[in-house]
């Protein structure tokens, strides 16, 4: 493809070997997910040119590195990099930091304006402060703005929220969301947090021990039973929906998607607004008969696609509602008693739905 990210790297270190190949779309947020030590940061650094691996890297049609000897040094790659610990320059003020990259690209190439970046990340009151006096969240916002101000073709983010407290994380996530809306900028987002992935990623690459386990759209990857994601305690499905209606009496919002409708607690939303919801496998139960007198609001018609026994006495069931994948965690006893198997049509009761944004 002429747009998008194409990457292939092989690298051997003392205790670690990397051998990856994946592709990601040329826009939107692609998550790089894996446990600590899986190689996520290494992949990011290879793409940035901070590590020199054998391989190939092409971004939106331009070759940054290939197997024929081409290797653009980092400072020639049109990228932005947000490090895990902000890494602002201590000898420059926030303004000085922001201007650092900004000054180094010719005015003609500045797609992102200085004031825009400052406004998007809410940095105006912090401009004359020194990095040492900022909180973790403030530093990270400044780091993101600094990276954006080079008008990059690709933004690389290395666990930008790891190490921040919950309120700082909550503070920054909306900014990241908005970035994605405002800018036509592909972002490669490294994290070991499934929460963050669920929240903002559209595409996902899963890594383990230096290798790619799978890559694809996030909704699909999170429900694939051959990947470790679906077997975690917080295993879940991501559903893209739109706001259909609002029930103001009971403070509920109706979200429509391919498999039907979901009611979630919420306040008035604009109709037609696209939202993303997360359905935890532990919140989904199955019935063979449509439940009538139940307190659970959300009941969907589903078809069972796969059943896996990944834990003693338990089963993980992948179902589809109108083609949209969901996960359900049930006991092996129930599975046997209800005769849940591939192809069976039944009902999914969803106890809780998290509205992500």
């Amino acid at each position: 493809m002429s747009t998008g990210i194409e990457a292939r790297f092989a690298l051997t270190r003392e205790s670690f070997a990397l051998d990856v190949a994946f592709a990601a779309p040329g826009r939107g947020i692609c998550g790089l997910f894996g446990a600590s030590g899986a190689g996520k940061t290494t992949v990011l650094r290879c793409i940035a040119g901070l590590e020199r691996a054998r391989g190939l890297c092409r971004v939106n049609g331009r070759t940054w590195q290939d197997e024929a000897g081409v290797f653009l040094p980092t400072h020639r790659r049109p990228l932005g990099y947000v490090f895990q610990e902000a890494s602002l320059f201590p000898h420059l003020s926030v303004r000085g930091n922001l201007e650092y990259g900004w000054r180094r690209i010719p005015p003609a190439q500045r797609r992102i304006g200085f004031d825009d970046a400052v406004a998007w990340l809410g940095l105006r009151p912090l401009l004359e402060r020194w990095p040492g006096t900022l909180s973790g969240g403030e530093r990270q916002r400044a780091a993101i703005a600094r990276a954006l101000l080079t008008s990059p073709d690709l933004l690389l983010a290395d666990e930008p929220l790891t190490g921040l407290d919950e309120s700082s994380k909550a503070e920054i996530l909306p900014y990241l969301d908005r970035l994605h809306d405002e800018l036509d900028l592909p972002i490669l987002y490294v994290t070991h947090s499934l929460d963050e992935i669920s929240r903002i990623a559209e595409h996902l690459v899963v890594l383990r021990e230096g290798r790619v386990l799978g890559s694809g759209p996030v909704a699909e990857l999170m429900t694939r039973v051959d990947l470790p994601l679906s077997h975690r305690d917080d295993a879940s499905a991501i559903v893209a929906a739109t706001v259909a209606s609002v029930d103001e009496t009971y403070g509920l919002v109706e979200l429509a998607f391919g498999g039907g409708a979901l009611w979630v607690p919420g306040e008035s939303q604009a109709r037609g607004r696209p939202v993303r919801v997360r359905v935890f496998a532990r919140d989904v139960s199955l019935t063979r008969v449509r439940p009538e007198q139940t307190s659970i609001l959300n009941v969907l018609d589903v078809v069972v696609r796969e059943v896996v026994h990944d834990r003693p006495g338990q089963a993980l069931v992948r179902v589809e509602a109108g083609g949209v994948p969901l996960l359900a965690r049930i006991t092996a006893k129930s599975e046997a008693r209800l005769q849940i198997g591939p192809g069976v049509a039944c009902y999914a009761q969803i106890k809780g739905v998290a509205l992500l944004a």
Partner: protein
Amino acid sequence: MATWESLIPVAGVTLRLAAVTTAVLLAAGTPLAWWLARRTGFAKDVIASVVALPLVLPPTVLGFYLLLLLGPWGPVGGALTALGMDSLAFTFSGIVVGSVVYSLPFVVQPLQVAFEAVGTRPLEAAATLRAGPLDRFFTVAAPLARPGFLTATVLGFAHTIGEFGVVLMVGGSIPGRTRVLSIAIFEHVEASEYGQAHVIAAGMLGFSLLVLIALHGLTRRLRGEAP
């Protein structure tokens, strides 16, 4: 016997020697320290050890070998003569060469430590912000290493002021050209002129103390600036 007037050219030579030596060492030592800070491996170990050699060699030994090197039968002296140039021995340039060699580790090592303390992260960040290697050095590494520059300058300067052995061997103690304060003190002691000797010594001690106090003050201020 020495009069105050005769002290002035001696002090002048001493200060000029210290200033020129320090300037040369900063210019040449900075890229060397930078290279040492960024590298690992055998070549770095060897070069770092060579840089540290003047710390362990007695200055008169150093001076002696320099004398041989600069002499007409030595490699440097011979080359200079072949090129039609004068020998460096007994010249101000010659004692600058000697002082540069002798004070080398006092300038390079603080710089190297300061550059190492900068670490790789700020430089990686700068690279991702489109800064090339020279740009990164001048706009990120050097400002962050500023206390190191200060230490290197003061140490190099003070060390050269106090230097005795190398200048003695290579300089020929020519008044107005290669005769420095430390040699003057030695001569006064040898000639039992203790009065003059302790005046010069006290002056040098006082000067060094002032310089060191100023260094501490400046370092504190610099550190306060970049928290």
